């Protein structure tokens, strides 16, 4: 089973922290984009290795998919169904990312029959002051409306994105924001730190001293607070930045960490097929131009050698709270990670950053290891 990702690189306005491929665009560009996307579907559907793939998750991400007219999305989903093997009904996890300002009841009603049964809402904070700092176009009242709309059409699988370590945020503000967000009763939360991406308005502001990014001690305190509140509401952490009511973990995202294959369509989308990591062109115009000329819009293909692939798989799997099942690795790679990494694992164990669990059959990050996962995992990559 594999995952299918479609990227929609359009937004009403670029957020101050956003370093990803997404921007406001004229209607004409949006139309050309979806025409090109159709071409990409037809092009990729001919590839033998893709013909063999069976998809049980569909993720339409962005950007802001809810910002574009439902007609575009419906047409694309139809094309996906007619060209790829995609599971139906409850066997499919069908997610669309939405922003509270653009999500309407009508839009949801149209999309739902196309297999969309999970909505991920970019809430970021239930705190209008923080939303303003982040350059978001919505306020917290619109979040309530958006969640109500999703429930009204009968979709219960609601995920929300929440962010912390925002300049100007303090512990009280974060706690209040989290409480208000959890009052919406999401079954899944992606809770992560603000990352300063080069070239964004936010990173410039921090560089110029107009905004203050919290120091490590404060960020650690924020992380601990967020984790404890989420856990206390039954949202169990299953990955470094993901929490879910048991049974509602995101199949699509877990696929990324566990080395499942996926096909990504759209500008800047990434695929992982038969051991090859493929990245589509990240420039909107050249991505469209390639497809208009009947060419694959691929910018980069990376094929890792066996060992590098093994290390990558180990590092990504370690992001999961349950860690790495050593036996699984032995079976998939015919190589034992404990033997392969030699002194490294005992060393990490001695420093209290990794631990064996379940009678030594599983290896996972400790709490401290999780907080400094980049430091720990960079040794294993």
């Amino acid at each position, binding site marked *: 089973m594999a995952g299918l990702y479609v990227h929609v690189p359009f937004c009403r306005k670029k957020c101050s922290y956003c370093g990803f491929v997404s921007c406001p665009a004229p209607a004409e560009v949006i139309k050309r984009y979806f025409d090109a996307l159709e071409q990409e579907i037809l092009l990729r559907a001919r590839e033998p290795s893709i013909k063999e793939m069976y998809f049980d998750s569909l993720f339409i991400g962005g950007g802001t998919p809810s910002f574009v007219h439902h007609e575009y999305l419906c047409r694309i989903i139809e094309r996906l169904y007619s060209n790829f093997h995609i599971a139906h009904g409850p066997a499919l996890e069908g997610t669309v990312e939405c922003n509270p300002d653009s999500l309407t009841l009508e839009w949801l009603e149209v999309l739902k029959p196309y297999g969309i049964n999970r909505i991920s809402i970019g809430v970021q904070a239930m705190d209008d002051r923080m939303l303003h700092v982040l350059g978001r176009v919505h306020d917290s009242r619109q979040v309530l409306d958006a969640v109500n709309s999703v429930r009204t059409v009968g979709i219960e699988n609601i995920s929300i994105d929440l962010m912390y370590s925002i300049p100007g945020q303090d512990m009280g503000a974060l706690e209040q924001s989290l409480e208000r967000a959890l009052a919406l009763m999401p079954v899944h939360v992606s809770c*992560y730190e603000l990352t300063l991406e080069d070239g964004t308005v936010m990173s410039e502001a921090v560089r110029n001293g107009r905004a203050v990014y919290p120091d490590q001690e404060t960020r650690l305190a924020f992380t601990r607070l967020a984790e404890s509140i989420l856990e206390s509401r039954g949202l169990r952490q299953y990955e470094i*930045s993901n929490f879910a009511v048991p049974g509602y973990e995101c199949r699509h995202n877990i696929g990324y960490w566990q080395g499942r294959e996926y096909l990504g369509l759209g500008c800047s989308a990434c695929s992982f097929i038969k051991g090859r990591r493929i990245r589509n062109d990240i420039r909107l115009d050249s991505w469209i131009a390639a497809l208009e000329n009947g060419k694959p819009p691929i910018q980069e293909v990376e094929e890792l050698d066996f060992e590098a692939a093994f290390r990558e798989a180990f590092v990504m799997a370690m992001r999961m709270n349950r860690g790495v099942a050593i036996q699984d690795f032995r079976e998939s790679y015919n190589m034992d990670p404990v033997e392969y990494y030699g002194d490294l694992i005992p060393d990490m164990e001695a420093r209290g950053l990794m631990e064996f669990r379940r009678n030594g059959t599983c290896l996972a990050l400790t709490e401290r290891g999780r907080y400094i996962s980049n*430091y720990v995992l960079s040794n294993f990559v």
Partner: protein
Amino acid sequence: MKNPAMTADRKRIRNFSIIAHIDHGKSTLADRILEFTGSVSSRQMKKQFLDQMELERERGITIKAQTVRINYKAEDGHNYLLNLIDTPGHVDFSYEVSRSLAACEGALLVVDSTQGVEAQTLANVYLALENDLEIISVLNKIDLPSADPERVAEEIENIIGIDASDAILASAKEGTGTKDILEAIVKKIPSPEGSPSDPLQALVFDSWFDPYQGAVVLIRVVNGCLKKGMDIMMMSDRQRYEALKVGAFIPEIMEMDELSAGEVGFLVAGIKNVRDIKIGDTITSAIKPAAKPLPGFKPVKSMVFCGLYPVDPGQYDQLKEAVEKLWLNDPAFSYDIESSSALGFGFRCGFLGLLHMEIVKERLEREFELSLISTAPAVAYKVELTSGEELTIHNPAQMPETSKISKISEPFIEMEIYVPKQYVGGVMGLCDEKRGRQTDMTYLTAERVLLKYELPFNEIVLDFYDRLKSITRGYASIDYEFLDYRTADLVKMDILINRQPVDALSVIVHRDKAYYRGRDLVSKLRKIIPRQLFEVVIQAAIGNKVLAKERIPPLRKDVTAKCYGGDITRKRKLLEKQKEGKKRMKQVGAVEIPQEAFLSILKV
């Protein structure tokens, strides 16, 4: 004499150099001369033809002297043989300049007509005047709107004291004035003296190592004739060789049968080791030797020292090989094996100055594919022990215990600084801060001032150039020469990381400045050393006395980022970058220290 390989009529030979400050257009002018005389077709022409090393082209400076033999048909209808002997323009390489000048009868003094006379130009002109060279003034860059040739000509007359009334106006960039320059060379520069029938006396003025031919020796034949196949002898050590190849560069290599009195060219004699050749030596015939050698040159001496270590200790053998090869090729470079508890095995290397140091490091890294850590540059100190013994210390870590030292002396230089008058205050402030003593101050023109200072050399190798440049917005130029050793109140300052001294970070400082430098260094290190899993304490200390202290709290939290659209590659590459960074760190005790820490000392 259409064929350049033919031996020239001595009366029609002109040997000349070009003297210019960096960026005043020396290499561009050389290019124009090569083009104008048809020595290089425009198809072959690369910019800055004579700067052959990749590094020379990139930095726009000349490091090694080059020679080119040029044919020129003058307006008088005769063919002349011009030997252009290119010279480096930086203070670090002035020893090469003086050697090149010894091979010439004349020099082009190229001055940027938008700038004026700079210190280095002046120093080289004085060298040329000492060698009795005829000087032709060229005012370059007259195509630029800011050119002021009259003012600059006046400067040449006032500052240097030579007649600039017939200075040639030129634009090397556009080729203006090239012909006038060539005519002036022919008319004003005297032909070489010397007799082809006397016993051979050829002056060695440069050499380099060629992997296929061994040492290539640049020579000026003063008397006699050097023929291919001749048995020759070095007059300093009476070593004999056979002249396997004789020739010149036109500018590509051209073999000839002989080089006669007055000519400049090269010699290959199966000499394996460039170190066997003494620059300034006289080559003579082994069969019929000359009675006495030509006057030679002062030997060059390393002035600045630093440790060079491989980032990867596994590269030590490669570094050793590279250092040995470079040593063969660069008589101004010296080295000794040294070891550091922080950096492992490496070399203490000696250089002429900071630019020379930078260039050697870059050549080692580039030409030998090494990745190196260099420690802070230091000068050589003389230490007198209470036992009466005297030591020369090249590395602060070797400094004996304070109780055993009776006195330490440090090298002083005399520096000349040329600066527009509005920056005089700033420069004087800088020199005071650097423990300088002013010995002279002269208004050269209404606008430009010459400052003379005696300065401890150790203060110069720190950040003097950078500071001077920013204080004067790049409008100052300097020249210096070594003066003497003077006793000073110097102390060794150690840097301790988690209470363990890091030998590669030790510095020798004046006691009055120890506190400030210690504080600066420690705070800089705090910013450079990344957080570790435990607290790190950095201290600066003299003996047991701690002058400054900072702590780096332990690593608590990485950034938890979201993974967008399955971009695992990006995530992995970020981790790989972090891993690479870690690999380039040096372990001191349990603390991982990035390389920049060792360089940071340079900037404090």
